[in-house]
């Protein structure tokens, strides 16, 4: 009986909770990103070495953080789905993947553009950029695998397994790429690893990171709510809800 409630009650409960939580995260995301952008773009001091191109850090680093965190979240959701059979976790994982890929792309793009003023080239096989590129392929793999199955349950399980395998590999890939990079490019200037940053520089960065995380949570809540409606369309409460909204 409990299992029954657990299975069927959960999406409805999640829907109600997330409907209430969602505006807060949207608000936080908007405020944090606006404040962080204004501060980072206009008020933070220019870097003594890189000048104003340094301001790319305020989108590059949050996007890179998010890109990695989303993959880890996907794997955690996969574990929750596989072990406790909670479908909400899988819906969230499915909705996160494209956002994660988008964030990886942002990190790659901003990193590449940043490379022009710092290295004088659009692409450098920098350790961080290389890891990001591999992460992008991992995202593509998870998304493609999910799309390839005709049965939704199999698709969910396969994507969960791949996300778990991927998340075990990410640190291995990261360390091996770092090692490979130091071997081939000894003592090259790396864009983001620098001696202590003054507070006027890292405070906006922190705000931007928090803003990006809020944005991620808000988008995931919203899209998971949509996915609930899609998957549970035949359930009574969804039909009633659709009637109310209209």
């Amino acid at each position, binding site marked *: 009986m409990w299992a029954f409630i657990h*299975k069927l009650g959960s999406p409805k409960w999640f829907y109600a909770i997330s409907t209430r939580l969602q505006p807060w995260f949207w608000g936080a995301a908007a405020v944090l990103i606006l404040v962080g952008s204004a501060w980072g773009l206009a008020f933070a001091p220019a870097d003594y070495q890189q000048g104003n191109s340094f301001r790319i850090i305020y989108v590059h680093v949050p996007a890179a953080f998010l890109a990695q965190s989303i993959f880890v979240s996907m794997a955690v959701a996969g574990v929750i789905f596989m072990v406790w059979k909670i479908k909400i976790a899988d819906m969230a994982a499915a909705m996160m993947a494209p956002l994660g890929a988008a964030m990886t792309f942002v990190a790659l793009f901003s990193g590449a553009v940043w490379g022009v003023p710092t290295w004088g080239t659009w692409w450098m096989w920098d350790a961080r950029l290389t890891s990001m590129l591999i992460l992008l392929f991992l995202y593509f793999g998870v998304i493609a695998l999910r799309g390839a199955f*005709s*049965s939704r*349950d*199999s698709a969910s399980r396969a994507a969960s397994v791949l996300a778990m395998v991927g998340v075990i590999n990410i640190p291995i890939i990261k360390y091996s790429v770092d090692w490979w990079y130091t071997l081939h490019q000894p003592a090259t200037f790396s864009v983001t690893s620098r001696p202590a940053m003054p507070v006027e520089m890292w405070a906006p960065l922190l705000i931007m990171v928090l803003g990006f995380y809020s944005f991620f949570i808000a988008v995931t809540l919203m899209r998971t709510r949509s996915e609930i409606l899609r998957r549970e369309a*035949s359930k009574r409460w969804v039909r009633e809800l659709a009637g109310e909204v209209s």
Partner: protein
Amino acid sequence: MSLRLQARKLACERDDRWLFRDLDLDIHAGEIVRVEGPNGSGKTTLLKILSGQLADFQGELYWNDHPMRRTRQDFLANLLYLGHAPGVKAALTPLENLAWYQALAGEPDDEAARFSALSAVGLAGFEDLPAGQLSAGQQRRVALARLELIPRPLWVLDEPFTAIDRDGVAALEGRLAAHARRGGCVLVTTHHELADSPALRRIRLGQGGDDATL
């Protein structure tokens, strides 16, 4: 020995369509249970669920009154499943195919038993030919030889009569009846009409599933 496979409130959804819902089953020793229904009604799916291959369903399975999750090992040790595909390697001879199945089932490596199982299904003289050179019906017979070779009380057979000639059908039908008489249990889908007997039960799966009844 006890032999009881139960399903409670079994429901399975495929592509937003219920194959069956609220299906209760109770299968005992000495029974032949024939699953019936039109194409696409979920016969194979039901057999796969009942043989523990599919996880994507609602409801509970019990093996000898214990939840299947906990008795899976014991259940598998009692099960012999024959699927749509015969599971016969074309590049191996019937003898080699059976040897693998023997080892997989934890049976002793016994060549004489393999020979007699093959001759019981009418494949005497074909033991050492690559299975790829046999006809479809003969390949199916290689798979059926497992029924003679591996002692398992619960048989789950998906369309076992496919591609088999008339004599073979009669022999197999007799084989199923004999298994049930000895206290075994057979779960089968087939388009072939089985002769009525007290041991025979039918489960009908209807389109849409609401009318799935015993």
